[in-house]
């Protein structure tokens, strides 16, 4: 073998796949051998001009660009083994609060792989893309019906992009009225993207607190509202999983000062077909199709974050927008559009999946989705009584937030330990330490696609972890949860080292000891 072959990794060893042991998986760079290849390219019959003939010398790369050189077999081995080191919805429940990790129907994957949709260039003129435009228009219409809004842009690529789009719409609306408002109200329990988007929208976020019920503190809200307030960013149910019952009053208060209401759609799942943001008084809504509408999350995207607005904001929407034109479809840019927010039309293949999901469920099915997501969450919540603290002991929507504060006090086992211990039980962990307003929070969202048996097993696992911690504390024994997880490909990580001695590329690594 050539060169430093003895240092190279064997592409055909499965040791790193959990099925076969616990060895680490080398990086693809460690499999690379000069001259190996997987690629092949079409025979074109073109003249074989050299790079020197085609590219002025001043621009021609001197050194070849170093990429891993592997055979197809080793490429497959490597990424297949990596996949065996990755939890996923298809392997088990993913009760991450605020994330709505439901099952993603397989037919939607096939839809997105149909050549008739997959292979369309985004600059195809409408006459050649009628199918796509129909899907996008129909999706927009369905989302408007679901949210109670008048029109929507499908361009935002995720929730945060939707938020920023919404805030720019808010800004444009006020500017059209000749106003320069400077502040936007955000509840303290809000997701981090909310204040960040507010800032990027050119506003100063103002925080309002949570009252004893876990809802927006109306008195505090009244105190901050004023003519410089452009609007409020809310999600309902809020990030504590609780429905803001006074939403109509809140809307009134905000509208009274000339502000707009923005709805963070991350929590739309439990109210599908039950109550609509538009009917609650919201003016702008984003949706996370990768949460509510089952487009798979991809390990962190791609998502899609369409933004729907009430009638008075329609003219401001980003463009070009897919629209009906006679019997067919075309594009139109709203007269006072804030402009594009995506290179083309948004994450189209994700949008197609959501269109499929809505079709598959229909209106009634979506309502059932919502109801059962709430049923699962309440059932689970009730099962945790006694084992964990209930910071706000009231019925929840699609997720529940409990606290491990007492548990920690009594046993030293923290929310994080509970999460890691749960991994050993065969479940993904819930969201921990968010929302920030609850100490040692565990935010659990089973979603409607988990069966009653799964929710029961999850509840049982959570209860038994608390019981185990208390039993070990009573016996003065070492807490197994502190060592968890012990059955996963790797154990707890040294996160401090990752940040202190940043190694963000293979090239930044020192030669490994192993």
């Amino acid at each position, binding site marked *: 073998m050539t060169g430093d072959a003895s240092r190279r990794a064997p592409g055909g060893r499965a040791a790193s796949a959990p099925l076969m042991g616990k060895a680490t998986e080398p990086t693809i760079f460690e499999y690379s051998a000069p001259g190996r290849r997987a690629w092949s*390219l079409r025979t074109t019959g073109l003249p074989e001009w050299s*790079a020197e003939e085609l590219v002025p010398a001043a621009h021609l*790369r001197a050194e070849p660009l170093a990429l891993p050189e592997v055979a197809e077999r080793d*490429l497959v081995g490597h990424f297949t083994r*990596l996949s065996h080191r990755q939890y996923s919805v298809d392997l088990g429940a993913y009760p991450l609060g605020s994330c709505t990790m439901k099952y993603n129907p397989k037919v939607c994957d096939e839809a997105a792989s149909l050549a008739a949709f997959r292979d369309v260039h985004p600059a195809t003129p409408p006459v050649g893309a009628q199918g796509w435009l129909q899907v996008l228009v129909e999706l927009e219409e369905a989302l408007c019906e679901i949210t109670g809004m008048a029109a929507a842009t499908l361009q935002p690529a995720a929730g945060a992009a939707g938020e920023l789009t919404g805030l720019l719409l808010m800004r444009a609306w006020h500017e059209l009225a000749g106003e320069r408002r400077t502040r936007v109200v955000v509840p303290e329990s809000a997701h*981090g993207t909310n204040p960040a988007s507010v800032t990027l929208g050119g506003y100063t976020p103002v925080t309002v607190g949570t009252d004893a019920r876990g809802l927006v503190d109306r008195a505090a809200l009244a105190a901050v509202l004023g003519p410089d307030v452009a609007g409020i960013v809310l999600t309902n149910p809020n990030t504590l999983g609780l429905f803001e019952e006074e939403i109509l009053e809140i809307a009134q208060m905000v509208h009274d000062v000339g502000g707009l209401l923005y709805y963070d759609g991350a929590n739309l799942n439990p109210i599908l077909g039950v109550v609509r943001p538009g009917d609650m008084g919201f003016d702008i809504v984003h949706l996370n199709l990768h949460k509510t509408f089952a487009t798979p999350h991809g390990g962190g995207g791609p998502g899609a974050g369409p933004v729907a607005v009430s009638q008075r904001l329609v003219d401001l929407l980003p463009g070009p927008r897919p629209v009906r034109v006679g019997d067919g479809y075309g594009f139109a840019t709203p007269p006072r559009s804030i*402009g594009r927010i995506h290179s083309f039309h948004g994450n189209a293949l994700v949008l197609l999946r959501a269109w499929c999901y809505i079709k598959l469920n229909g209106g009634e099915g979506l309502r059932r989705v919502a*109801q059962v997501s709430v049923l699962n969450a309440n059932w689970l919540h009730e099962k945790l009584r006694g084992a964990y603290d209930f910071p706000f002991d009231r019925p929840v929507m699609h997720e529940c937030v409990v606290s491990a504060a007492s548990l920690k006090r009594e046993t030293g086992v923290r929310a994080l330990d509970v999460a890691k211990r749960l991994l050993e039980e065969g479940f993904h962990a819930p969201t921990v330490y968010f929302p920030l307003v609850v100490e040692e929070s565990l935010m659990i969202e089973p979603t409607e696609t988990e069966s009653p048996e799964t929710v029961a097993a999850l509840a049982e696992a959570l209860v038994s972890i608390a019981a185990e911690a208390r039993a070990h504390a009573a016996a003065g024994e070492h807490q197994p949860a502190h060592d968890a997880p012990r059955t996963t490909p790797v154990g707890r990580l040294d996160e401090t080292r990752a940040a202190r001695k940043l190694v963000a590329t293979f090239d930044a690594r020192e030669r490994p000891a192993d």
Partner: protein
Amino acid sequence: MGNFVPHTDADIAAMLEFLGLASLDELYAVVPAAIRLAGLDLPGEIAEADLVAELDAIGAGNRVGSRALCFAGGGAYDHEVPAVVRALAGRSEFVTAYTPYQPEVAQGVLQALFEYQTMVARLSGLPIANASLYDGSAALVEATNLAVATTGSPLIWCSQGVNPRWVEVLRTFARGSGHAIATIGLAGGVTSFDQVPAGRAGAVVVAYPNYLGALEDLAAARAAADRLGAHLIVCQDPIAAGILHSPGQFGTDVVCGEGQALGNPLGFGGPYLGLFSCRAEHVRRLPGRLVGETVDVAGRRAYVTTLRAREQDIRREKASSNVCTNQTLIAVTAAIQLGWLGTEGLRQVALRCARGTRYCRAALLSIPGVEPVSEAPVVREFAVRAPLAPELIVERLLEKGFLAGIPLREGFEGTDVEGGLLVAVTERRTAAEIDGFAAAFAEVIR
């Protein structure tokens, strides 16, 4: 009903009973009655088979393949994607995972992103790359935000050779950030950096190759940025990178780009992939996720998202960006595609694009009436002008089975580029296809 809700009516009854409730509606007792709905005005559920039939029918309204042989580019390219990339990127562990919040069970995605970051860093010639952004335009917006935050100047000098749709996105987001976007015009197809007046600025933005396929002078760009105390931001095409210099060589601060060409289908514009790399000194202002290597309790090599303090979920309103969900699966796909290509494969793709570009350009220019928009050397795409509006050329050629390119209008108003047609040729186009295209082109403009 509800194949995606496992619960039977009996299950629901039992669960309600446990909760002491009589109906599902009671779960919503807290919702004001006035706004509670009876249901949605949407059609009923349909069977998978009916959906598939509908997709087939609707899909027939899209022209693909031989009904629209692709000569369009502009940031979205018809490159080869082999079956192995689809098979691996389609593995459900990657597809149905969440953002890696529990690294012990997310080593698959984390390591793939670490490999992706390495490859993107090598493409750009810069040491740090993030784990993806939404698309090329989003990457450009983030790059300018970083530049403004670092330099303190909100003025962005943007070459007219940058993708005009990206520039529009930049302008949209500038409504919130308050940045000022100024244009540096083109001369002979490339940016005239000497147009830029003296003063201070946050960034100079240039594309390599530019939107018209031409090769910009990055040293001149760097010099212009230096004069302004500005960052140099280069929008790099990751395919042409196989034969061109890396922007990192020219002291570029941030390299951004559109990664669709790396293993992803055209997909009517998305999901695509924002590529983002920067100099080491900018790492604490890096937008998006960053994966770092570390060890676990047993000393085993492992990966984790790191420097999280930059991110919105921790820094909230002070975060360097609001990005949360990004384009992980597309980044993983790009890593697999680049693994498939390897050093020589990427070079070959770049080279073959350049060959097709030269061949096609010559073929079109040999048609009477067709003229070049500029004589600048091109490697990726090129612009021509014909005695017929580009919109009409595109429309008529579509009837003949060709997607001819992208009309040059927005962003070029009033310039000598306006009214041109931007044509792209990838390694997938054969000589016969190009000949057919040129023949049809000649016909439609006759």
